[in-house]
């Protein structure tokens, strides 16, 4: 399992910039927003939590369609499925690798981009914390979507259509917690709910994803 994690992270790093791509995408989205809505600092500060969360979410989505597809095409997935490891574990490990190469770096740079959008300093902590708690759920749900669409020729667009509605609760609680923090309110409730969703997702969804993979390998 650790070997698989190491391999996936290594592959992501060697193949075309790994961390870089998602981060650059996140940066571009955040930079484009002021061009769209105008440079007023108050407006930007108000929408910053939502924009940052949305940007991180879309950046996560970006690399999902290759999560299982490369392994499917070069035969590794067949071999992984016959290896002495449970497929549920493979799914979880690959989701973790995806999180390490996208969710985690996004979380780390988010406060910097928050400064660009005039997000109040007090909310930066909440932003990091919500992303840290919420992005694993995005990766696991994405792995489910990737498992559903792995056998399809043009799975990318369908993947987004399937996965994005599943992201709604995470987005709502994540952005809401940051918004509350930036208004100077306590954000404990949405934060707890966000954590609950992530825990539940990590506990249940890998089984469905592994089931979908098995079906697609038949």
């Amino acid at each position, binding site marked *: 399992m*650790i*070997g*698989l994690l*190491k*391999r996936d992270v*290594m*592959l992501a790093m*060697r*193949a075309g910039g790994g961390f870089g791509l998602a981060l650059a995408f996140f940066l571009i989205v955040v930079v484009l927003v002021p061009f769209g809505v105008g440079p007023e600092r108050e407006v930007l500060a108000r929408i910053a939590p939502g924009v940052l969360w949305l940007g991180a979410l879309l950046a996560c989505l970006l690399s999902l369609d290759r999560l299982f597809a490369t*392994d499917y*095409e*070069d*035969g*590794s*997935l*067949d*071999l*992984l*499925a*016959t*290896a*002495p*490891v449970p497929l549920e574990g493979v799914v979880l490990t690959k989701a973790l690798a995806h999180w390490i190469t996208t969710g985690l770096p996004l979380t780390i740079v988010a406060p910097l981009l928050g400064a660009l959008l005039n997000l109040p300093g007090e909310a930066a902590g909440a932003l990091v914390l919500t992303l840290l708690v919420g992005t694993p759920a995005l990766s696991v749900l994405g792995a489910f979507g990737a498992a559903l669409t792995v056998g399809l020729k043009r799975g990318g667009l369908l993947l987004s259509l399937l996965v994005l509605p599943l992201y709604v609760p995470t987005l709502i609680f994540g952005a809401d917690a940051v918004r509350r923090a930036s208004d100077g309110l306590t954000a404990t409730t949405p934060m707890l709910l966000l954590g609950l969703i992530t825990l539940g997702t990590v506990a249940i969804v890998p089984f469905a994803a592994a089931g979908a993979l098995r079906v697609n*390998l*038949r």
Partner: protein
Amino acid sequence: MTTPLLSLTDVACTRGGLRILEGVTFDLLAGEALILRGPNGSGKTTLLRTIAGLQPPESGTIAAEPECIAYAAHADGIKSTLSVAENLEFWAGLFGTASIDEALAAFDLAALRSRRAQSLSAGQKRRLGLARLLVTGRRIWALDEPTVSLDQSAVSLFAERVRRHLDDGGAALVATHIDLGLDARTLDVSEFKPARVATGAFDESFL
């Protein structure tokens, strides 16, 4: 009478909703190799995938010890940005075996160990794919066209490894068209073509 390592009884397989094999019955003993033959599309790959557990048989039973089959397909599952040694170490780690040196030596890959897999030739990649079998440490090898893109000397190298594997009490199930010079039984898959044209379970229930 030794118990067989692998035993198929009246197995039927489907591909793309169409039943292509039925009544497949054979035993595979330790130290024995079985060559699967048959024209393209006769179901050799489907049978091997079914035996490897990647798809359920439509009917019949496949009896084998759990996790004793190493499957090698057309695709080798090699990551082009990893080196030869890294590729092999990954699989060795996954199957819980220690050393990759012997496997590298067996397929004459030791000199290439730190080369990136993307710079390997097709034959070298194939040899790497076959070396993976050795690090799985499993007793039954289920091989799908293992000699594709291998040259003459690599084929004899491979045949030699299979023989060693059989001597060590392993078994092999090989779908191939060339003569490996093994002392092996041959099974013609086209014998198991369904007499009556039948469709798979999903369609069958609608007829």
